[in-house]
């Protein structure tokens, strides 16, 4: 007599076919490969940071703060970043003073005032396209327009307009579309009810914007603009065309005005020119300059992210 194993109940069969976890490689391998792609990009970031720090160590430990405080030089033992850091900070100030008011103003116009007509749509498309123009093309704009403009207003200095002001204007034009886009996004996130409440009590459009919309959107605008400044801080290519010095120069005891209109350089430009110098000394010094650049930029980024988390509003 054949022994018959009793059949499981119907309920048990159904449960098995629904819950039965037949292990499938596809189910496992697909997310695993996706995660691998993500980790791979993060691995590149980690490798970059570790590699730069390791290479920078001999210069940083041997020279200490003098890497930051010394002036530019062709001699790797004494060369420092002081002028480059000051140049980059100066450029950042020019960018902030020019790009932020215009950019935020344009964003306010596009989000709050602009009627939905052909001109507005054209401006919007134009801004998105400007954001995609390669940075070196902005260098050409700076070289042909802003350098001449700076010379024409009498701020050319001893370098015929190829100075900090022209460089700052160039970078301001470069980041302007990004400022507009991020500020417009922040303004769009403010609920319409806020505006309607303002209009309801008789405020004009400008009063609503000034007292309600912009304060509510401020954290978003601020985060966006800090990130944009960081981008301008790390930009190299356009400055090569607007005369940022790739060699070394000295300003001595020049006044602030002469410094702003004289020869200049920026931290990323110095990194570029040091990277082309032969010799192990300069290789380590370049890495040290990169460490300084990354520390400054990541501090700005971290500040922006903290600001965003601190003041982020949930509606």
């Amino acid at each position, binding site marked *: 007599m054949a022994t018959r194993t009793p059949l499981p109940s119907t309920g048990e069969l159904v449960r098995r076919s629904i819950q039965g976890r037949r292990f*499938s490689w*596809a*189910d496992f391998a*697909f*997310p695993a490969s*996706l*995660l*691998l*792609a*993500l980790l791979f*990009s*993060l691995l*590149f*970031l980690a*490798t*970059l940071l570790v*590699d*730069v720090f390791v290479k920078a160590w001999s210069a940083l430990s041997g020279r200490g703060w003098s890497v930051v405080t010394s002036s530019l030089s062709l001699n790797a033992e004494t060369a420092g970043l002081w002028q480059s850091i000051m140049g980059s900070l100066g450029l950042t100030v020019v960018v902030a003073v020019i790009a932020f008011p*215009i950019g935020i*103003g*344009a964003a306010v*116009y*596009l989000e709050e*005032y602009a009627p939905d007509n052909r001109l507005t749509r054209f*401006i919007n*498309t*134009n*801004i998105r*396209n*400007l954001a*995609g*123009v*390669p*940075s*070196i093309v*902005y*260098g050409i*704009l700076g070289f*042909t*327009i802003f350098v001449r403009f700076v010379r024409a207003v009498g701020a050319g200095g001893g370098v015929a307009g190829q100075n900090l002001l022209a460089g700052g204007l160039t970078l301001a*034009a470069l980041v302007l579309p990004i400022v*507009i886009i991020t500020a417009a996004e922040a303004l769009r996130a403010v609920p319409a009810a806020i505006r309607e409440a303002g209009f309801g009590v*008789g405020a*004009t459009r*400008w009063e609503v914007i000034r007292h309600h919309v912009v304060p509510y959107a401020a954290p978003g605008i601020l985060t966006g603009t800090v*990130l944009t400044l960081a981008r301008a801080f*790390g*930009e*190299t*290519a356009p400055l*090569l*065309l607007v005369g940022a010095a*790739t060699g070394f120069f000295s300003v001595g005891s020049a006044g602030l005005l002469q410094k702003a209109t004289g020869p200049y350089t920026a931290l*990323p430009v110095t*990194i570029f020119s040091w*990277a082309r110098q032969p010799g192990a000394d300069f*290789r380590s010094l370049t890495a040290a300059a*990169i460490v300084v*650049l990354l520390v400054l930029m*990541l501090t700005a980024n971290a500040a922006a992210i903290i600001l965003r988390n601190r003041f982020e509003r949930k509606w």
Partner: protein
Amino acid sequence: MTTEASAPDIDLRGSRTRLRRERRVHRLFFGAAVTSILISLLIIGSLAGEAWRFISTVDLSSLWDLGWFPRRGMFDLKTVLVGTLLIALVAMAVATPLGLGAAVYLSEYARPRARRWLKPILEVLAGIPSVVLGYFALTWISPNLVMRLNPQAGVFNMAAAGIGVGILVTPLVASVTEDAMRAVPHALREASYGLGARKATTVTRVVFPAAASGIVASLILGLSRAIGETMVVAMAAGAVGGSLFEVNIFQPGQTMTAAMSALAIGSDQVAGSTNAFQSLFFLGLLLFLMTLALNVISERFVRKVREKY
């Protein structure tokens, strides 16, 4: 109440000074918005004039030569165009799998907690300046990846530059793709699960096709960024002064952007002597038109996504 009877006398137009200020502010903001159009016009103007001067004075046969040596009057366009294309292709070969993989993982698989950590790190990668990646491509990628892969490769080669550009483009591709995938309505995923599909099937057969135009847009945008990238190529691809026509990615090569930056650094030596410096503007115009075309196409695809959902 007698005071209420005089209600029709209330002036509802508001005070004149407020209205005047309103108009002034309006005009001011409009001016700010129009500045962006002014910048576009200035860019086109600054490129077109000198580019035209170059084209009208250059010996046209020098545009098809042995290589790109502007100081010797050799402006071989195929050298810089093929170099640009090769580096952009290597970059996209790196950025497409990494960027899409990261985006799909972040949007479909990552738990909110993991996402909160991973996304900012990816943003940090997006914020690394290109000059830093150029240094990394030259001093790490080239000796540790490319030269190990192909011992015949020199220190300066297009493959290392391409990988460097690819790393730079990856966060852009990832963030645009992720936006597109998150825009796909949840109802589609739920319908797919309701039919008994697995997660992997849902992602590849439902979410991915639904987000296809956004994903295409991200890749085109990445390509446009890769073509316009300057510093990584200028530092890692070699060929500072000029380059022979080269199709081997393990050899040094020249792109449009690198050629422009080389001309810019050496501008004092070449200015005025020949039309070498004008070639910078010609390349700039070419680059501007190419990236503009790509951006417009990518914009079309993005709009398709927006219209669908």
